[in-house]
Every structure is written in structure tokens, then in C-alpha cells.
């Protein structure tokens, strides 16, 4: 299909050289465990902010969001302007004082300080397993993509990606991951931006795009603006391509899923914990929110351009234009949106940059997983349950060793994915169940001092079960009982509740899980005794923590002020593209 030339390989190799060089450069700074796992808490806010964003911008995010842009149009922006910005501001303004101020070294460790050992263990083990599998799955997806697109050998792709990430983290720890994430952020931005520019020129600008997208919408049986208006068609689930109504979007995505991810996922929170001061830590997610708000241009717009061009090519029968590939089952293969656009539009040279950007997005996501896994394994599992009370040098050594075998496990997971497609889907489903209620635990833990360890633990476990239960009793339309849901209903000979789309089902699973966890944590907490004294809870709970003084801090460094400005920007974007 595609074919890289010497100049493309030169750019790719240059990139590999630089990421390894950064690791080498930082090697001598890694003297203590805190240097390796927390960057010695020395990272300036803007670097931590870009790394915070970049760790989230894995290849699956880029490829998946472009796919959704083609499938659902501008409604995909809900994952940014509703499902990210408010939560990013919330974690910076309200939650970071506890994460950073408590000197916890990881999110699970905060749970130990606030609740108890079992809550931490549950979170640490499920999180560690999740990071290994998700980096394995994205490695698998990337290697498959390169094989299909460029004819690269599958094993070679896995090997080269894994070894490079391993080496630069092994040498420079979290600092190396963070610095490389900043570099990768700019590569992703400057590598994909020309794609949007060329695509827009080809389709006749924004007006050409909206005209063609209204044809796409009408031919799919929706109103003309269904692909270009984000809220107008959410009055009922049947009137928009995503198959969800406004409440599901606002509550399921905007509240439960987004706060659950941005506020509790150690993969991103770790970047803020590495910041050099409390102020820098609080600013980290807010700084990240600014580029996050504009990223739909890079990832969603190409998807919208792709579906518009495809529809135009199909209906006019014109040759030589861009068209999405068709699957065996007759639908479009949306996951190939970005790669196919790259190969279609980029000449040799620029194509090298585009492939490098794809590689960079993969590596930034993978490095996020690896560093988070290192820390959680070493501090929350190894030091806590296996070999406690050793020297700092011992745990530093363990962190390095974990980089090697953690990446090894991910490679194993990637090969497992080639063998058992369903196992991977099932694991991702289980992780989604575990994650859905988590934000309720943190919210109650941070803002209600009466929440107890038993309440948190059993609330989490039962919330996870509630997610599984809802999934087992509901089905997206057109799917059969099994991995997509409805398995419990078919066992009990009931009719499963039907949702119009898988997305709607996911949003509602999250809503039920969160509500169950929230209600049960409160009830169980009220029935059990608070074992933590007020003194122990100082710095961990809102009402027992002294407010941060901001006198003398200029307004542009105040998290609250900046948060309000960024939030206003997100509201404005929602209104403009209403």
C-alpha cells in the first residue's frame, strides 16, 4: 500500500536517535528512587502540563478519535469539551492539593493514607494489570497497522517500539518519559497538522466540508447538521449518529467517565505529582487543558474530512479521490482513517514526518503506561506486600528491573492479542467495570471526612459489580448476547434492555456503577466506625486541610482564575458548534 523512501527513514531514525539521546542525557541524574519514580519533584509546570496531555495522546486515542470523527462527526468533540476540560480543571483546582500535598507517591498510596490497605491493594493491582494490557493492546494495534500500511514485519515493529521505550525509561526514569512526551507532543502536533491543511484545501475549506457532510447525514437518515452540530440533535438518541441523548452525554461521559479518568488515573496524575511545587502541580492539568481543547482540529477534523470525501467519491463515482477502505462485512474500516489519509496525501518526506508522528503518539502513551506501572508495582505492591523495609537504592534497582520485565509482559500481552481476540475485549471490559465507580470513592474520600475504609472498599467492589450487572442486562441494538452485553439476561431468559448504540450502553453502565458506589460508600461508612483520627486525615480531606494561600501569586499563576478562563473557552466552543 504505502512505501517509505530513504528520506522518510532518515526522519524516523533521527527521531529514534533523539528519544534515546534524551534518555542517555538524563541517565546521570537518576540517583534516588524519587528521581526515578517522581523526577525528584522538580518538573516545571509547562513541561508537566504537556507531558500530562501527551501521555493521554496515545496512538489509540489519535486513531480512535479520528475514527469517531468519521463515524459520528463533530459530536466526537464531547470527548474533549465535555469529557475532558471540566475534569482536568477540577483535578487541578480541587484534587491536586490532596495528591501533591499528602506526599503520596502514587494514586493507590493516597488511598492507603485516606482509607486503608485493602482499598489501596484493590486499586493498585487492578491498575497495574490494566497498564500492562493496555500497552500490549496498543503495541499490537500499531504493529498490525504498520504491517498493513507499510509492509513492515509484525515482530520487527513490536521489537523496535518496545526496545526503544524500554531503553529511554530504563536510563532516565520518569524524567526521561516526561521530557520525551514534550518532544512527542510537538511531533504529533506538527506531524498531523499538514494533514488537516491539505485535507481542507482538497475539500474546499470549512464550507465545502459542511456541505458534503450534510449529504452524508441525510443519506444516513439524519437531519442535515447531524455531523456538524454537537448538541442540536441530542434531544433524543434516535436523532444522532452516536445514538445517545444529552443526559447520557453530560452525566455518563461528562461526569462519571471523564472525572473517573482524568482525576484518578495514575497514568496522567503521575505527571502532575512530578511537578516542582504545589502551584506547578495544580497548574499542570489546567495548562494541559488548553491544547486539549484545540486538539479536535488535529484528530476529529481529519475523520470528518475522510467520511465527506468517501461519501463524495461513492456518490459521484469520481476516480482518484480519497475513500475509506471497506471491511469484509461491508462497513467502512474507520480505524484506518488517519493512516489512509497520511498515505493518500503525504508525499515522500512529509510521509516520514507523519509516520514519525504516529510512532511518537504510540510511544508517549506506552511510556505513560510503563512509568505508571513501575511506580505502582515498586511502591504499592513490591514494597508494601513482598519485600518491605529495604534501602532506597534497592527500590531504585527494582524500578529499573521492572521497566524491563514490565515491557516484557506488555510484549507478551501483544502476542496474546494476536491469538485471542476475545480475551483482550473481555479484559478491557473488566477494566472498564473497575474504573467506572472509582471517582465516587475519591470524591467522597476527599470531600467527606466520615467516609471509612470499609465503606470505600465495599463501595468500590459493589460498584464494579453494578457495572457488570448493568452490562449483563443490556445490549446495544443489533448485537447478540455475549461480550457486548446481555449475557445475564439471556441466562435468566429475560429481554435485555436495548440501547441504540454501544456508546450509549457504556455511558449508562458508568452512570449506574458510579451511583451504586456513591450510595453504598455513604451507607456502609455510616454503619462502620471511622478508624482514622482527624490528625491522620489532615491534608487528605477538604474540611481538615488548611486552604492554600494565594496572596502575592499573580492572577495568571492562580489555578482557580486560569481554570475559570479555560472553562469559559470550552463553554464557548460548545456554543459555537452547538
Amino acid at each position, binding site marked *: 500500500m504505502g512505501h517509505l523512501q530513504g528520506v522518510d527513514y532518515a526522519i524516523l531514525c533521527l527521531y529514534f536517535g533523539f528519544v534515546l539521546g534524551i534518555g542517555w*542525557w538524563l541517565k546521570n541524574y537518576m540517583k534516588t528512587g524519587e528521581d526515578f519514580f517522581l523526577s525528584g519533584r522538580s518538573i516545571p509546570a509547562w513541561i508537566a502540563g504537556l507531558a500530562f496531555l501527551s501521555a493521554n495522546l496515545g496512538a489509540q486515542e489519535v486513531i480512535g478519535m479520528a475514527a469517531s470523527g468519521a463515524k459520528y462527526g463533530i459530536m466526537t468533540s464531547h470527548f474533549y469539551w465535555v469529557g475532558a476540560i471540566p475534569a482536568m480543571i477540577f483535578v487541578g483546582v480541587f484534587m491536586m492539593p490532596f495528591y501533591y500535598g499528602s506526599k503520596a507517591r502514587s494514586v493507590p498510596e493516597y488511598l492507603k493514607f485516606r482509607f486503608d490497605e485493602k482499598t489501596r491493594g484493590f486499586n493498585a493491582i487492578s491498575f497495574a494489570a490494566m497498564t500492562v494490557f493496555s500497552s500490549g493492546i496498543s503495541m499490537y494495534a500499531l504493529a498490525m497497522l504498520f504491517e498493513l500500511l507499510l509492509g513492515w514485519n509484525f515482530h520487527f515493529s513490536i521489537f523496535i517500539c518496545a526496545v526503544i521505550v524500554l531503553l529511554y525509561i530504563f536510563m532516565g526514569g520518569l524524567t526521561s518519559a516526561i521530557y520525551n512526551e514534550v518532544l512527542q507532543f510537538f511531533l504529533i502536533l506538527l506531524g498531523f497538522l499538514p494533514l488537516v491543511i491539505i485535507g481542507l484545501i482538497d475539500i474546499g475549506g470549512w464550507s465545502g466540508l459542511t456541505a458534503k457532510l450534510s449529504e452524508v447525514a441525510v443519506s444516513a437518515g439524519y437531519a442535515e447538521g447531524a455531523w456538524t452540530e454537537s448538541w442540536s440533535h441530542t434531544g433524543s438518541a434516535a436523532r444522532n449518529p452516536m445514538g445517545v441523548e444529552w443526559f447520557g452525554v453530560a452525566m455518563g461521559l461528562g461526569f462519571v467517565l471523564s472525572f473517573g479518568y482524568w482525576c484518578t488515573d495514575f497514568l496522567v496524575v503521575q505527571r502532575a505529582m512530578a511537578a516542582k511545587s504545589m502551584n506547578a502541580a495544580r497548574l499542570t492539568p489546567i495548562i494541559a487543558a488548553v491544547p486539549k481543547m484545540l486538539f479536535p482540529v488535529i484528530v476529529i477534523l481529519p475523520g470528518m474530512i475522510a467520511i465527506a470525501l468517501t461519501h463524495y467519491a461513492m456518490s459521484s463515482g469520481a476516480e482518484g479521490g480519497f475513500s475509506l477502505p471497506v471491511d469484509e462485512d461491508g462497513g467502512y474500516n474507520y480505524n484506518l482513517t488517519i493512516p489512509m489519509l497520511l498515505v493518500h496525501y503525504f508525499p515522500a*518526506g512529509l510521509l516520514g514526518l507523519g509516520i514519525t508522528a504516529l510512532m511518537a503518539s504510540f510511544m508517549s502513551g506506552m511510556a505513560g503506561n510503563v512509568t505508571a506501572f513501575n511506580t505502582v508495582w515498586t511502591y504499592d505492591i513490591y514494597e508494601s506486600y513482598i519485600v518491605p523495609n529495604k534501602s532506597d537504592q534497592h527500590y531504585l534497582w527494582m524500578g529499573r528491573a521492572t521497566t524491563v520485565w514490565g515491557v516484557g509482559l506488555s510484549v507478551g500481552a501483544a502476542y496474546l492479542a494476536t491469538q485471542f481476540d476475545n480475551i483482550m475485549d473481555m479484559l478491557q471490559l473488566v477494566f472498564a467495570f473497575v474504573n467506572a465507580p472509582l471517582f465516587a470513592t475519591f470524591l467522597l474520600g476527599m470531600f467527606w471526612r466520615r467516609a471509612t475504609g470499609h465503606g470505600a472498599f465495599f463501595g468500590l467492589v459493589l460498584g464494579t459489580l453494578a457495572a457488570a450487572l448493568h452490562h449483563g442486562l443490556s445490549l446495544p441494538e443489533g448485537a447478540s448476547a455475549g461480550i457486548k452485553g446481555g449475557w445475564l439476561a439471556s441466562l435468566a431468559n429475560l429481554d435485555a434492555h436495548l440501547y441504540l448504540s454501544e456508546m450509549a450502553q457504556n455511558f449508562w453502565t458508568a452512570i449506574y456503577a458510579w451511583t451504586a458506589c456513591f450510595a453504598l460508600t455513604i451507607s456502609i461508612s455510616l454503619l462502620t466506625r471511622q478508624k482514622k483520627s482527624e490528625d491522620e486525615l489532615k491534608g487528605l480531606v477538604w474540611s481538615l486541610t488548611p486552604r492554600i494561600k494565594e496572596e502575592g501569586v499573580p492572577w495568571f499563576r492562580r489555578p482557580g482564575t486560569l481554570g475559570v478562563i479555560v472553562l469559559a473557552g470550552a463553554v464557548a466552543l460548545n456554543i459555537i458548534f452547538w
Partner: protein
Amino acid sequence: MQVDIRLPIGLLFSAIGAILVVFGLVSSPEIYERSVGYNFNLWWGLVLVVFGGTMLFLSWRAMKRPVP
């Protein structure tokens, strides 16, 4: 920590930009049919050189300033 990430970023993007500019100048115009007729290697290469140069300048300025 005396490490400035702007230095490697500046170097990398200047280098990639330079490669694209040179390749854009020597490559045959036919390969730009796919990029809707514009020589994107040349123009985007220039953008990258400017970006890389700015990063290098910022890093150089920070190095010149004495550490407080």
C-alpha cells in the same frame, strides 16, 4: 536540574525541517500531485525550521542568563 528540553526539541525540528526543505527543493514536482499541487515538503519544512529555531533561541537565551 540543569536540563533544558527546548534544546533537543529545537535541534530535532530544525534538522527535520532542513531535510524536508532540501528534499522539497530537489524532488520532482510530480510527487506533489498527491498533496493537492503544493510543495508541502518545502513549505512545511520551513515552518519546522522556524519552530525549531525559536526553540533553540529560547534555550540559548535561558543559558546566557545567569542562574539566580
